[in-house]
Structure formats: structure tokens, C-alpha cells
């Protein structure tokens, strides 16, 4: 009886640790597969034929088809620059300078990776439609309620997240996303929470 109990406990422990740790790394990334640049995270080898097994597993689980790093870079953020989880209860200011690339865009999603439905039908700002400040920089306000300027609605999204896409970067990452410098990417500052 003791042997049987130990065998069951042994198997359960092995399954929970084995699958739980695999899921954790695939969902949250790890130092050997992802790069963190300020609040932004990127899977350095996503989409590549020689990607590591964690990146391949991540791609299968995410359901995305990312283009490789020399053509497009993808950064996600679900935390602000202080490391606190983004919340639809709060206003955030995303500030930066236009990225030196053929095209770039910042989009907001809910925790499932779907667009945050809103009456304004606004889901992103990109290099072609963002309003710049007189000094050439930009400010985007991620907020649940309408705000003047570049307002990106977060509505009542559960665990909102941001994705920054950079298409054909120029001098942004000479050897891929690992070399992207933090000051090139926008910062995310929490303002007030409702």
C-alpha cells in the first residue's frame, strides 16, 4: 500500500513539475530564448528554421506566423516600465521617438491576443497615422476612457497587452532583436488608476 501511494505521488509530482515548468517557460519566456528590453519582450529566434525547441513550442502554442528578424521584429509588453502588470483600470502613457524603420506600429490586445473592441474602432497607431509632438516624439495614451491625442482604448480588457511591430528596421537591430537598444523602444508609464 505504501509502495502504491508513493508510486502515485511520484508520478503526480513528476507530471506537475515537468509539464508545469514547460508551460511556464513557453508562456513567459526564459533568458535563453527571449530578450527583455525595458518593458518589452521578444522571442529572438521566432519563425526561424533553426529556432530552439522552446521557441518552436511557443510558436505552435501562440498560433502566430511571425516573419523572421531581418525583415520584421515583434515586441510584446504586458507590464509597464516599472514592472507592474498592465491593467485596464489604469491610464498609461507610451512615449518614444519614431523608430527608424520602413513601418512600425503599436497595437493593444486583450489577454487572449484579440483586439479590444471599442466604439472608436481604434486598435493601434502606426508610423503613418500617429500624431507627433513638435519635438518629433510621440505620446500614446492607453486608457479605458477617451483621451485627447493618440488615444488607444483599453476598455475593460482583462490583462491588456501591447505589441510593437517594426518592419524593415534600419539601424535598430543590426544583428537581430537581441541587439535592440532599450532607448529605441517606447517607455510605458502608469499614470492614474480609476
Amino acid at each position, binding site marked *: 500500500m505504501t509502495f502504491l501511494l508513493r508510486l502515485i505521488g511520484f*508520478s503526480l*509530482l*513528476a507530471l506537475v513539475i515537468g*509539464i508545469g515548468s*514547460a508551460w511556464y517557460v513557453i508562456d513567459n519566456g526564459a533568458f535563453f530564448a527571449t530578450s527583455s528590453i525595458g518593458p518589452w519582450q521578444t522571442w529572438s529566434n521566432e519563425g526561424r528554421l533553426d529556432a530552439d525547441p522552446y521557441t518552436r513550442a511557443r510558436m*505552435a502554442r501562440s498560433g*502566430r506566423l511571425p516573419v523572421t528578424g531581418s525583415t520584421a521584429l515583434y515586441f510584446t509588453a504586458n507590464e509597464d516600465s516599472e514592472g507592474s502588470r498592465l491593467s485596464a483600470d489604469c491610464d498609461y502613457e507610451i512615449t518614444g521617438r519614431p523608430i527608424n524603420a*520602413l513601418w512600425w506600429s503599436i497595437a493593444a490586445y486583450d489577454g487572449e491576443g484579440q483586439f479590444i473592441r471599442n466604439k472608436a474602432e481604434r486598435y*493601434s497607431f502606426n508610423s503613418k497615422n500617429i500624431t507627433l509632438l513638435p519635438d518629433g516624439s510621440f505620446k500614446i495614451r492607453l486608457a479605458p476612457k477617451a483621451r485627447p491625442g493618440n488615444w488607444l482604448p483599453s476598455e475593460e480588457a482583462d490583462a491588456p497587452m501591447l505589441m510593437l511591430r517594426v518592419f524593415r528596421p534600419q539601424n535598430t537591430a543590426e544583428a537581430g532583436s537581441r541587439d535592440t537598444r532599450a532607448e529605441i523602444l517606447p517607455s510605458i508609464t502608469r499614470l492614474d488608476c480609476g
Partner: protein
Amino acid sequence: MKIWSYLTTVKLPWLWIVAAVSLSGVIHIAAVLSLPYVAERDAWARLSAISSPNQFYVLPSDAENAPLPLMAPDVASAFCRFDLTEKNVLLRPYLPDATWTLAIFTRYGENFYVITGAEARRKDLRLLLVPRERLARETVSEKTEEDEEQIIVITPSETGVALMHAPIRSGDFMTSTAAALNLTTCEPQKPTDAQLLASGAPEVVAPPPVAPPARRKNRRGTRNYR
């Protein structure tokens, strides 16, 4: 200190615990390695649910119908799930702008080929997808019998996805850009005259030459997904 004294007094099955942790390492590796092959909601599965092979479809990217997660709201997209099991597949992407991109993926989402409007020498390209194994048996040329240039793309797998991306200014431009994406075609390669002769097929009288038609908006092989 209390924990240590507890651990020294209580007799835990350490051998079992060490064995369980070791086995969890094996399970961890097996789970990571097998996930691409067992995932039921990867991009291939999601696109298979809404498409037939060897046809281009414009991907809906509105809030209600986005078939893939984290789709770009300001990028119009179209895709073709190609299947080279029987024949090579001919892609004719239309790349009128530097930012328009054709990316080709294996069935597991590995991006092995990409061309953008900035690199393409002409808007109207011809790409022939040939699996690596077949390349050794077949003669494929970078010039067609009609003396048209074609790019030979050697694919590491027989199935995969060709994906067109067209960044747009805002959602208002989605419909017009989707119409332009409709100019892209994806269809199995038709046998050449030489191949027909070699296979013993009866000779077909060629129709009189006519001027090549202007690109039509909805060429055969292209459909809207709705």
C-alpha cells in the same frame, strides 16, 4: 531552522523525490519537443479550418473574425496553404509597395523565405515552390517556356503557408488594400509542353498568340474569405 529540524525528524522518501524530479526533467523536455507536433490550435490548424489548399484567401482582421491571435489591425493579409504533394505550386504575388511582403512558412510556422516590395525588381512576381526532394528529379528553370522570369523557391516541407502582408494607414484602407491583395494567386503548376510530350499525352494545338491580358481584379484561384 524549524523547517530543517522538521526535515531531519520526519523521514521523507528522498529517493522517490529525487527520482520524481529527474523524471519531471524528462517530461519537461518531451513536452517542449512534442508540442509543435501535437498542438491543435497552431496557425496551420486555424487556417486549415477556413481554407482549401492552393488558393489565396484574404484574412479578415476585424475584431470579431480575426482567425489568428495577435493579428495586426493595420496590416491587410492574405494567405495560401500550399500542398506540393502532387505538383509544384506557382505563386504570383503582387507587391506594389516597398512595405508589402510575401513570407513563406513550413507547416510548423518556420519562415524560410521572404520577399518584400523593396527587394522585388518588379511588382508582378512569379515564384515556383518546389520541394527539395523533387528538385533532384525534375528540371526546373528560372525561365518559363514563355520566357517569363520565375524565382525557384526550394521548400523544406511539402506543405506550408504563403502569407502576404500589406501595412495600411488605418482600418479605413482595409477594403481597398484587400482588393489589391486579391491580385495574388496560388495554384498548382500546369505541366509544360515538354512534360506533356514526355508523358505521351496527345499533342494539343496551341491557340493563336494573343496579347497578355491586363491583371484582373479577381483572377482564378483567388477568393475572399468571408
